[in-house]
């Protein structure tokens, strides 16, 4: 047989086998309901009805179904990102792959309108709560704190500029700004302040930030000793999932005071009541960071045996979750509100909870995108 023919037969044969093989595998293998790595439900086989077929919904859903349930989906994704890395691509899905496997989220600066909206909302909040001090602690992310680990020539100065402007405008509106960047810079060599595969700060980062807040809010932290408990070495976070990076697991360490006060945690949405800030069941799932507070909810109430009459309201994103162990020593009541989920009236809640202090606690990436119309 001439060689060209051999080449064609092999190639065409491979195409046929691949198409038929995966087609069969697709339908023979059972469908999956959930993707832990992608953190979403996978499309199930849609039912064709006259209306869904004629308006295109069935077709769209079927296309999603076919892709979501495609055999070896995760392996194909690793192959793709691997091939891209070979060609020098260091970014995928808004996540940058830096040195030594460190992953970073690309900061997207808000538009001028969005920025003005947020600063107006902050000013509105301060006005409405009158004398109650409002602290603003927006943490930088790993891209800002460890820029030397970013891939070559990655451009990310925008986050620093954003934080500068944010703190300036907030201070003008009467908020007490807590800028942790200086403290992070000093300690970043000795401690890992952020996870390598996740967009959150580590407990070390949270502790460093807490100490800055404590200084600003005059909390008595002089005699507090902390213990560090390693609870996992298999954590693979959101950034690895978004990028499609086959990361090895990393450590999670819990930091809490050695003499932690007893406390209760109430979740108004479900009515559940617990007696710990940690949900260790979550360590068995893919989303191990949810160990802290069990995840994010519209509101959560923490009552501790501090018995000092101090009440704190935290308007937060998920960064706050691992700072609770340090905060709960100093406040007998802490109320958490997540503006991404809370649908009620913020000021009614404030009136009900009567906080002595309000802390807005989050990170630059999330805060730049969060809708603060809750404050108006």
């Amino acid at each position, binding site marked *: 047989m001439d060689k060209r023919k051999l080449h*064609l037969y092999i190639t*065409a044969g491979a195409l046929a086998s691949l198409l038929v093989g995966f087609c069969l595998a697709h339908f023979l293998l059972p469908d999956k309901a959930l993707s832990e790595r992608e*953190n979403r439900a996978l499309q199930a086989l849609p039912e064709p009805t006259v209306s869904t077929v004629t308006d295109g919904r069935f077709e769209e859903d079927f296309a999603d179904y*076919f892709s979501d349930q*495609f055999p070896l989906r995760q392996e194909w994704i690793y192959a793709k990102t691997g091939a891209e890395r070979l*060609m020098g691509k260091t970014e995928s899905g808004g996540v940058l792959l830096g040195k030594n496997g460190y992953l970073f989220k690309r900061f997207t600066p808000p538009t001028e309108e969005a920025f003005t909206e947020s600063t107006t909302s902050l000013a509105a909040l301060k006005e409405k709560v009158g004398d109650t001090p409002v602290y603003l602690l927006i943490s930088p992310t790993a891209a800002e704190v460890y820029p030397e680990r970013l891939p070559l020539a990655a451009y990310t100065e925008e986050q620093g500029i954003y934080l500068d402007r944010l703190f300036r405008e907030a201070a003008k509106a009467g908020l007490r700004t807590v800028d942790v960047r200086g403290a992070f810079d000093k300690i970043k060599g000795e401690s890992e302040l952020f996870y390598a595969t996740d967009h959150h700060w580590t407990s070390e980062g949270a502790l460093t930030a807490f100490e800055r807040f404590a200084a600003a809010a005059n909390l008595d932290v002089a005699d507090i000793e902390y213990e560090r408990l390693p609870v996992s070495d298999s954590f693979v976070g*959101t950034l690895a999932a978004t990028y499609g990076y086959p990361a090895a697991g990393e450590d999670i360490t819990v930091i809490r005071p050695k003499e932690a006060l007893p406390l209760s945690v109430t979740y108004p949405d479900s009515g559940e009541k617990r007696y710990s800030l940690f949900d260790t069941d979550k360590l068995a799932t893919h989303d191990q960071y949810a160990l802290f507070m069990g995840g994010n909810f519209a509101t959560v109430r923490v009552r501790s045996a501090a018995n000092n009459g101090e009440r704190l309201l935290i308007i937060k994103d998920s960064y706050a979750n691992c700072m609770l162990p340090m905060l709960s020593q100093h406040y007998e009541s802490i109320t958490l509100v997540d503006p991404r989920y809370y649908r009620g009236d913020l000021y009614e809640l404030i009136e009900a909870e009567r906080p002595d202090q309000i802390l807005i606690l989050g990170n630059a990436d999330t805060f730049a995108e969060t809708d603060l119309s809750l404050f108006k």
Partner: protein
Amino acid sequence: MVFSSLYFLFLFLPVVLGLYYAAPRVLKNPLLLIASIVFYAWGEPIYVILMILSILINYVLGLDIARHEGVGRKVRLIVAVALNLLVLGFFKYYGFVTETVGALFGLETGAVALPLPIGISFYTFQALSYIIDVYRDKVTAQRDLISFALYITMFPQLIAGPIVQYKDIEAQMHHRPFDLLQVTSGAERFILGLAKKVLLANTLGQLATAMQGDAKVGMLGAWLGLFAYTMQIYFDFSGYSDMAIGMGAMFGFTFLENFNYPYIADSITDFWRRWHMSLSGWFRDYVYIPMGGNRVRTWRHILNLLTVWALTGLWHGASWNFVLWGLYYGVLLLVEKYLLKDFLPRLPRALRHIYTLAVVMVSWVFFAFTDPSAGLRYFGALVGVSGLGAEAVYSLLNYGVLLLIGGICCTPLVYKYYRRLSEKIPYISSLLAILALLLSVAFLVHDTFNPFLYFRF
């Protein structure tokens, strides 16, 4: 349906191919027709009716034209052409026309344009080619409705061409003996087209789109984006054509080539003998030559050429930037024909190629931006009005290898060596093809990768 999707590749295609090869000869065409209608209806569940109507009307009119002579024949031709153009004009250009007229008279029209039925530009032009060639007695009017319908709807070329003229396919409708060499060559062609589209066009497109969408793009970024877009458009379109031709071959059809390494052209005239050849061929055969072509006095020739090119531009999209794009080429072709005819061949080859590429790349800026202010801004960025934009070095590092590979693939070199390899060391060449296929699938799977960050975070 889209060729570069998992459900097409791994469900529709294997099922249709399997049924086709298993089917007895008399059922092959009806099977393909049904598959093609399903293919079209999948993307256009409502407008499929429009296409079916177009088929029926053109079928009837074609037979009618053939039955008459003289004036009656001509009148029927005019009716048929007018009907086809009216439908195309209505669905594609209604919004464009009303807006333009409104702008001329200072009126706010608030016209709501209908959504454009997929492929209408392609299948209408194929229907017109049939009608006109029946009139000219170049082909026999097709009595078999199924064959005629298949000509219009055949799914390999329905959505994105190549535009197949009826005379090139008439004989193949009922005579396509099974040829293993043709089928396997088609499979190979299909894989190469898929790789061009998924590995090159889509990836380069990310860079192009990012730069085009960045209002603050600097000179470095703008040029990177323009190189990327230039290659994206070529790989996208030619990749689709390769897939169409490859699939056609798998069903026993031979379609004409649509692209012939356009970026190695050494003049604009040469470029248009290599780019989207089925479209320029269609305009030549059905507009330019009937208008007199170049066998007329000079002023009339200029008019003919500019008309054809304005129409070519307009065919690409219902927006003035496309007309401008077309006229740009029309003017340049005239300049090359009348002013540069003796000068151009005397230039050193390298300069001719650079001249051609520069002209073509500029044309893509017209093509990319329907909003004139955005287009002007991009032109400004290209010449440095917005500064150097050194942060684009990051994009250069990320896409540099890809741009280089893309550039080489624009030349015949890659295919030539691959082809030679397949004739000398078939195990390695087939491995390369298979790798390209596997990588294409990986990229397609990743396209649907959609992690939802904030639900629980």
